[in-house]
């Protein structure tokens, strides 16, 4: 459960990290959900989302472009959009609510900030999912600054070795911060890796 949960960070660098997820429920409202989910993605992008994704068929790189990805969204998809600004997120949520798509919407981020966003568009918190962190063989975890980047792909597809290699390339002047964040986004098939936050985290490692 929970690929948008367990993002590691401090309250400062998580302040501008939000993931909106939209999906139908199987056998309740999934029929005809594809076009609604397409529209939700378009609303998010218009509102200024940093990234958007389709967790069912893969991200824009995997599908050969953002427009192709949106066109391919089908019933039962789980679509995502990453925001770095609560005002933009609230604008998207307002429009989605007014359109009354009936799709479930989950927002990941600092609980207090997300609650403020809910109130700003006239909704109340319904259900929350809270991370109790990492347990077990925690000696295997990499350093915290690596975890802050790695945990932005909840399926664990952005490897620690790729992050280290990418940071080295930036340090050596072989790659810009923008190129680095796109390189790290690409393995995240759901498109929830926040490239804007990644750039700031990599810059802090220089």
């Amino acid at each position, binding site marked *: *459960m*929970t*690929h*948008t*949960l*367990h*993002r590691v*960070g401090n309250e400062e660098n*998580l302040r501008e*990290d939000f993931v909106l997820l939209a*999906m*139908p*429920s*199987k056998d*309740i*409202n999934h029929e005809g959900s594809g076009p609604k989910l397409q529209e939700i993605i378009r609303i998010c992008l218009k509102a200024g989302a940093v990234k958007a994704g389709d*967790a069912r*068929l893969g991200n824009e*790189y*995997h599908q050969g472009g953002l427009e192709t990805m949106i066109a391919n969204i089908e019933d039962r998809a*789980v679509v995502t959009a990453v925001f770095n600004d609560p005002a933009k997120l609230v604008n998207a949520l307002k429009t989605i609510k007014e359109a*009354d798509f*009936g*799709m*479930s*919407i*989950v927002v*990941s*981020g*600092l*609980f207090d900030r*997300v*609650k403020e966003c*809910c109130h700003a568009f006239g*909704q*109340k*918190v*319904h*259900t*929350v*999912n*809270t*991370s*109790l*962190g990492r*347990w*077990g*063989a925690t000696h*295997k*975890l*990499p350093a915290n600054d690596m975890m802050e980047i*790695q945990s932005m792909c909840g*399926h*664990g*597809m952005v*490897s620690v*070795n*790729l992050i280290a*290699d990418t940071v080295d390339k930036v340090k050596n002047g072989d790659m810009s911060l923008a190129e680095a964040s796109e390189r790290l986004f690409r393995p995240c*098939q759901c498109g929830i890796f926040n490239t804007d936050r990644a750039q700031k985290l990599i810059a802090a490692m220089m």
Partner: protein
Amino acid sequence: MQIDQELCIGCGQCVPYCPVGAISLDETAVVDLDECAECGCCLRCADCPVEAIYQQELEYPRTVRSILSDPLTIATESGISGRGTEEMKTNEVTARFKKGQVGIGIEVGRPVSGARFVDVERIAQAMAAFGVEFEICNPTTSLMSDPATGKFKDELLNEKVLSAILEFCVAQEALPDVLKALKAVAGQVDSVFTVCVACRADEDENIPSYQYLDKAGVWYAPNGKTNVGLGRPLAKEA
């Protein structure tokens, strides 16, 4: 996943992409099949200049690696991509987590180590002692030979996946005891795992599970997932 040794030019471009470090480089790149979780990341993203990476035909029980590691595999049980279920994401229309209950998710192998089912089983058995019912829609549950005890099929115990999720509900009052047992078994496994608790907010938007987490003395994160209640039709209990 495998790399065609006749084609590989040993450039090493694929090596850092593997989430479990299963690709090593000598004169050519080689996949350690015992460690490979069949997630497909190298094939999709490494841009092998000679297209030497290829997906070999998978046979059971190895197919389980792909089902639980490749995020684009659609699980038969849940009908959605990924390793989990709809869980709290659609709770306003399903009422899956009712007031007075909490949903618990234990994702073994996340975020970095990957997991063998011998560890998943160890944790599942500790939780089964509380009489929990593992979520039937979760693909991990279907791999158990006896969900009542948390026993997995023997042929799966050494299979490695990026992560496997144990999902179940308990009464919120049971949360401290369940977490105490989880803490005890945490010292007996070779994998990292994440733990989460899903809970319906009350009318004043308070989260009832927090008092039980405080009672258990367990740390919880200031960030997480919030269902904002826009799904329709609303479930009766929602």
